[in-house]
């Protein structure tokens, strides 16, 4: 029987999402399995003069404190996850923690103009001041902690594109080691604002395939030319296996292992052989006490950038050896774009949902595989595939690598 290196088994008992494919888990999974794209023309603001005009845009929930989209997404994903887990707002629990990957702070250029006007007075109340010029990113974790009575110190992860996976991994670790009993973990982000989109344009990191939004995100395809921005949130309720059983909760999956690493290579490029990615995945496998032979599927980082995809492919070949060509690898970003700090959380939900349905979702827009990307990325069409262990990975700008191992609940028999 496999089991965690540290003390307690950690299970997922609730999930919620806000994504470009829908703002609830079933719609999201249906869209993924159907191979639908959620990428479209940006409608939140006028992009006429910007090089990038498309993104994976999500619907803004009605509860949007400070007008900050990522806060609204986090609150909505968490609401779904807590309801799904059967948790209501409760008295503060000192062993319950919020662990969130949170995107960059929203900056309002127009406020910069306003404060230069003669006689300018800043907003008088705290709420107004927090929304003026720039909204602190940690606001959403405190709102969640207050709303649900999660009274252990909250973790605010800022490891770039790895933050969502790190938030889930850190929560898993806290529960597995007995330091916490329950966690609300995930990630939230929205960079679909003038400064965010312009910033990525300036870095020339995003695709310019504006005329065909649905076809723009092309992980592992020879014709890929950059990633598509996305926005949204994913939230999961994690708790001790024995606690979940005791209260009769639905067990969606076990988080069985977590591993991280630094590339320690270059500021904007992954290690070309995927050394850091390999280290993170192999550490997650060791933590879960499984071998590469136990890996049934992979949810790839799969950004569709020229440098990520071959590096990730190298890492997977190093990890899986001869089995590398036999393990299906799905790139969720082909359908929803790159949700940055939320990506790992949303992709964890995708991995769990597909595992439970016995299917691997496709990597869409993969018509001409890059010769350097020669593994089985499940091109174009979903496939029935039984999975007991799935590896989901996120690799961040700056060389942060994070992987988790997700185990099917059928292996949780006492």
């Amino acid at each position, binding site marked *: 029987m496999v089991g965690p290196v540290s003390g307690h088994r950690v299970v997922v008992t609730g999930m919620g999402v806000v994504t470009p494919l829908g703002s609830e888990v079933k719609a999201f999974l249906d869209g993924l399995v159907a191979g639908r794209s959620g990428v479209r023309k940006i409608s939140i603001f006028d992009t006429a003069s910007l090089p990038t005009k498309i993104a994976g845009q999500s619907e803004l929930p009605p509860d949007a404190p400070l007008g900050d989209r990522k806060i609204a997404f986090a609150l909505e994903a968490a609401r779904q996850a807590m309801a799904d887990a059967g948790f209501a707002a409760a008295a503060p629990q000192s062993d319950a923690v919020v662990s969130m990957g949170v995107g960059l702070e929203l900056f309002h250029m127009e406020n910069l103009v306003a404060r230069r006007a003669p006689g300018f007075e800043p907003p008088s109340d705290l709420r107004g001041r927090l929304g003026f010029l720039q909204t602190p990113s940690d*606001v959403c974790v405190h709102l969640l902690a207050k709303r649900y009575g999660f009274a252990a110190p909250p973790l605010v992860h*800022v490891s770039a594109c790895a933050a969502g996976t*790190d938030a889930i991994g850190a929560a898993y670790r806290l529960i597995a080691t007995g330091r916490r009993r329950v966690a609300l973990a995930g990630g939230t982000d929205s960079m679909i604002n003038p400064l965010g989109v312009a910033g990525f344009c300036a870095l020339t990191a995003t695709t310019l395939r504006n005329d065909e939004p649905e076809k723009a995100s092309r992980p592992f395809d020879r014709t890929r030319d950059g990633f598509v921005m996305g926005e949204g949130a994913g939230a999961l309720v994690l708790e001790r296996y024995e606690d979940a059983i005791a209260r009769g909760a639905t067990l969606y999956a076990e988080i069985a292992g977590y591993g991280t690493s*630094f590339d320690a290579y270059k500021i904007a490029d992954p290690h070309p052989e995927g050394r850091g990615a390999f280290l993170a995945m192999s550490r997650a496998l060791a933590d879960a006490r499984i071998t590469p032979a136990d890996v049934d599927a992979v949810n790839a980082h799969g950004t569709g950038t020229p440098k990520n995809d071959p590096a990730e492919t190298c890492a997977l070949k190093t990890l899986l050896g001869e089995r590398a060509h036999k393990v299906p690898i799905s790139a969720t970003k082909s359908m929803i774009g790159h949700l940055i700090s939320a990506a790992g959380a949303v992709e964890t939900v995708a991995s769990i949902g597909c595992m439970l349905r016995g299917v691997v979702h496709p990597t869409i827009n993969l018509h001409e595989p890059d010769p350097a990307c020669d593994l089985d990325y499940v091109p174009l069409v979903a496939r029935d595939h039984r999975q007991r262990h799935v590896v989901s990975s996120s690799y961040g700008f700056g060389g942060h690598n994070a992987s988790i191992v997700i185990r099917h609940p059928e292996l949780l028999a006492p």
Partner: protein
Amino acid sequence: MTLVTAMASVVLEPGQTCDPSRYLREKKAKKFLGLQDALAVVAAGQALEAAGLWGTLPAERTGLYVAVGYIPAALRDFLPVLEGSLDAEGRFSLERFAADGYMRAHPLLAFRCLPNMPAYHVAVSFGIEGPYSVLYPSAGELYLALDEACSALARGEIDVAVVVGVAHQRNFLVEHHFQRVVPPVPVERLRDGGAAFVLERDARPGLGPVRARLQALDVRYEPFDCLELVPSHAEELEIEGARHPVDLEIGPASPLVAVQGALAAGGGRVVHRLASRDGIRATSEWWAL
């Protein structure tokens, strides 16, 4: 048991600069570093040097646990963008911003202020490939990074933990933040600083000289309505039973700066207490060895 084999801190007086060149693996990388990155690299470099681990770190067995302060930016970083984004009446124009304004930003601005960059620069400068936590934006979060570092050492996941707290606070954006909280924090109390502790397990063969022992660590939190109130902030040191308030605010670097100063000054038993504006309450007890 967690042992401290080296400590270092850099706290700048207003107007002072911080040169990380000595510790950079590639000197040409210096242009990518903002002040928070430089402070983190210098503090980590000084600590690793003192521990005898500079250049000899076990790359895959070293973890990096970082807490970073609020995103810094100077007004001068924004002004060119703003000037290129105004219409004829002096109002912000999205059209002008998209056509001209955004291209006036310094091309390296994002690299110099992103909160994960201090961790990147420390990792690449000293060859750290182990596990990590990168947390934000308070001294309370530094305590959570420290807690995970101790746990990773205790689990045997790593042999060496580098814990870094860093904050670039004397700038337009962070000063704006501290002016809007209740009560506002006078700019004079803010400092830019970085601090790093090298932690090791007591069982490791070839352990370096031990400076101190982390005897106890306690981190708590009280949920609060962050749109309506700001919890009070207080920080103090207890050195051999005598209490001393910590007046300067150095963000996530504050606890390590305070403890390092007390231990370096000969404090035998040092207790650090923190009440952070994000509702985190923490206490740590350190014994000089």
